[in-house]
C-alpha cells in the first residue's frame, strides 16, 4: 500500500517534471514559460505555500503537492489535514494558511462570511455517500433499505458533521429510517468500526471506500445523489504568498488535479 502510493507519487512527480521541462524547452526562456498558464510568470513562484485541507483530501493533496513542487522547483507545499470545521477555527484564530480546501460549502462560507478569503472560492470536487461493509458482508447488505432492517448494526456520522447531515438527507429522500448503533463524530471513525468488523455496515464517502482498499466492500446506492457534497477551495485573505496560493489552486482545479481526484473517487464539481 505504502509502496504503491509512493510509486504513484513518484510517477506523478516525474510526469509533472517532464511537463515542466517540455514547457521550458518550447520557449525562449523560463521567464516567459506559460506552463502555469495565467498564474503569472514562473520565476516569481518561490517560497512556501501552506495548504489547509479537509482530512478526506489527504491522499490526493499529498500527491498534488509533490507534483506542484516538481513543476515549480524552489517551492515547497506544507500540508495540514484536519476536519474542515477544525481548520476553519484555526484559520479564524490566525493560523498562517495560504490555501483552504473544505469538504463542504458550509465551512467555506464561514470564512467568506468573516471576510477571511481573497476572492471567491472555486468548487473543485464532489463526493457522495456509499455503504461500506466488511469484506464478508455478514449482514448481507445490498441496498440502502437493507440498512434499516432489524439486527443490522449500522454506524453513521452524527447529524452535526457533514457526512451525518448527508446521511440524514438520504434517509429523508428514501423514507428508510436507520437505527444506528453509533453516531460517530468523523467519517474515519465510521470506517474504523467497519474495518474492525464491529459494525455490519457504515455510511461513508465513496472516496473513503476507495482508500480503505480491500479492508471494506463498497455498495453504491442510487439514492446517494440526493446528498452530494461539494468541495470548494480558496485563497486565504491573510496569505503572504497569494500568487503561489493561486498557482496551487489552479493545479487542483485544472486537468491534472481533476485526474488525481477522479482516480481517488471524487466526482467533477
Amino acid at each position, binding site marked *: 500500500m505504502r509502496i504503491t502510493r509512493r510509486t504513484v507519487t513518484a510517477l506523478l512527480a516525474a510526469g509533472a517534471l517532464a511537463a515542466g521541462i517540455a514547457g521550458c524547452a518550447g520557449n525562449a526562456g523560463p521567464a516567459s514559460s506559460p506552463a502555469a498558464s495565467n498564474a503569472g510568470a514562473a520565476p516569481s513562484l518561490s517560497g512556501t505555500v501552506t495548504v489547509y485541507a479537509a482530512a478526506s483530501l489527504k491522499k490526493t493533496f499529498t500527491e498534488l503537492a509533490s507534483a506542484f513542487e516538481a513543476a515549480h522547483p524552489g517551492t515547497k507545499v506544507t500540508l495540514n489535514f484536519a476536519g474542515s470545521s477544525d481548520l476553519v477555527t484555526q484559520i479564524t484564530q490566525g493560523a498562517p494558511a495560504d490555501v483552504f480546501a473544505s469538504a463542504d460549502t458550509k465551512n467555506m462560507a464561514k470564512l467568506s462570511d468573516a471576510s477571511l478569503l481573497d476572492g471567491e472560492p472555486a468548487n473543485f470536487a464532489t463526493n457522495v455517500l456509499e455503504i461500506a461493509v466488511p469484506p464478508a458482508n455478514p449482514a448481507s447488505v445490498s441496498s440502502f433499505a437493507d440498512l434499516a432492517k432489524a439486527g443490522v*448494526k449500522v454506524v453513521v456520522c*452524527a447529524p452535526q*458533521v457533514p457526512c451525518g447531515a448527508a446521511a440524514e438527507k438520504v434517509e429523508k429522500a428514501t423514507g428508510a429510517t436507520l437505527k444506528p448503533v453509533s453516531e460517530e*463524530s468523523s467519517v474515519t471513525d465510521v470506517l*474504523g468500526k467497519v474495518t*474492525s468488523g*464491529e459494525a455490519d455496515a457504515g455510511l461513508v464517502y465513496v472516496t473513503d471506500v476507495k482508500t480503505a482498499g480491500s479492508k471494506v466492500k463498497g455498495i453504491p446506492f442510487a439514492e446517494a445523489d440526493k446528498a452530494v457534497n461539494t468541495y470548494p477551495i480558496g485563497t486565504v485573505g491573510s496569505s503572504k504568498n497569494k500568487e503561489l496560493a493561486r498557482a496551487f489552486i489552479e493545479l487542483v482545479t485544472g486537468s491534472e488535479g481533476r485526474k488525481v481526484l477522479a482516480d481517488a473517487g471524487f466526482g467533477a464539481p
Partner: protein
Amino acid sequence: MTPSPDASPAGSPGASPVGGGHGYSGVPRWLYLPAAAGALFVMLPLVAMLVKVNWGQFIPLVTSAASLDALGLSLRTSAASTVVCLVFGVPLAMVLARRPFRGQRLLRAFVLLPLVLPPVVGGIALLYTFGRQGLLGKSLELAGVQIAFSTTAVVLAQAFVALPFLVVSLEGSLRTAGKRYEAVAATLGAGPTTVLRRVTLPLVMPGLVSGAVLSFARSLGEFGATLTFAGSLQGVTRTLPLEIYLEREADADAAVALSLLLVAVAVAVVGLSYRKPGRQVAA
C-alpha cells in the same frame, strides 16, 4: 539560616527555631515564582473558558436532553468503572505491595501502562480483545454477550484507563503503612483475611479513597478509548466528553458550556473528596 537570639529551646519538637515568630516553611523564596507560573498555566485556560461561556444560553445549553443524557451516562459509567477498579485494583495493589515474586516488576509495568498509553491505543487494544472479531469477543458473541456499542464497553474503556490510578495510590499507601501492625495481628492469631479486613484496609483507607476518587475522575474524563471502542450514541455510549467533542463541530457555545459543566463536576468530585483522606491522616 542563623538562629535568632530568642530561639526556642533546643528540645522543642515540631516548630523550627528559624524565622522568629513563624515556623520554618522549607520553601526557598525564589521557588514561588515558577510555582505561581505553574499555577497560572493550569488556571488561565480555565479562566479563558469561563470568559467564553455564553451565559445567557448556559442553562438551556447544559439542560438540553442530549446534555443531560451525556451527564447522566458519564456519572453512571464512571461510578461503575470505579467499582470495577476497586474489585480488581485492591487485590492487585496488595499483591504488588506485599509479596515479592518473580515478574513483579513486569506486572507492575503492565498495570501502569495505561497511564502513559494514548487512550486511543487502549481503545484499539480493547477492540481486539472484546470486539466482535476480538480475542474474547468471539466466545462472548457465541455466549450471546455483545459488548461493542454498549454501555458495558464504555465502562470497560474507563476502567482500563482508570485502574492504574487506584493501584498506584493504594500500593503507595500499603508500602507507607508497612507490615508491622499486620504482623502483630497475625501473631495474635488473626487469619490473613481477618488481618486484611480489620487491620490493612482501615490503615490504608485514605489511600484507597483517594485512589477511588482519582479513578472516578479519570473515568469521567475518558474520551479516546471510548470513542475507539464503544462508539457514540446518545444515552448509550455518548458520555460528556464525547458530547463535547461532537458539539464542537456544530455549536461552539454548547461545547464550551458543557466543558464548564464537566470541569465543575470534576472539581466537585476531586476537591470535595480528595482532601478528606489527608485530614484523616493528619488527625
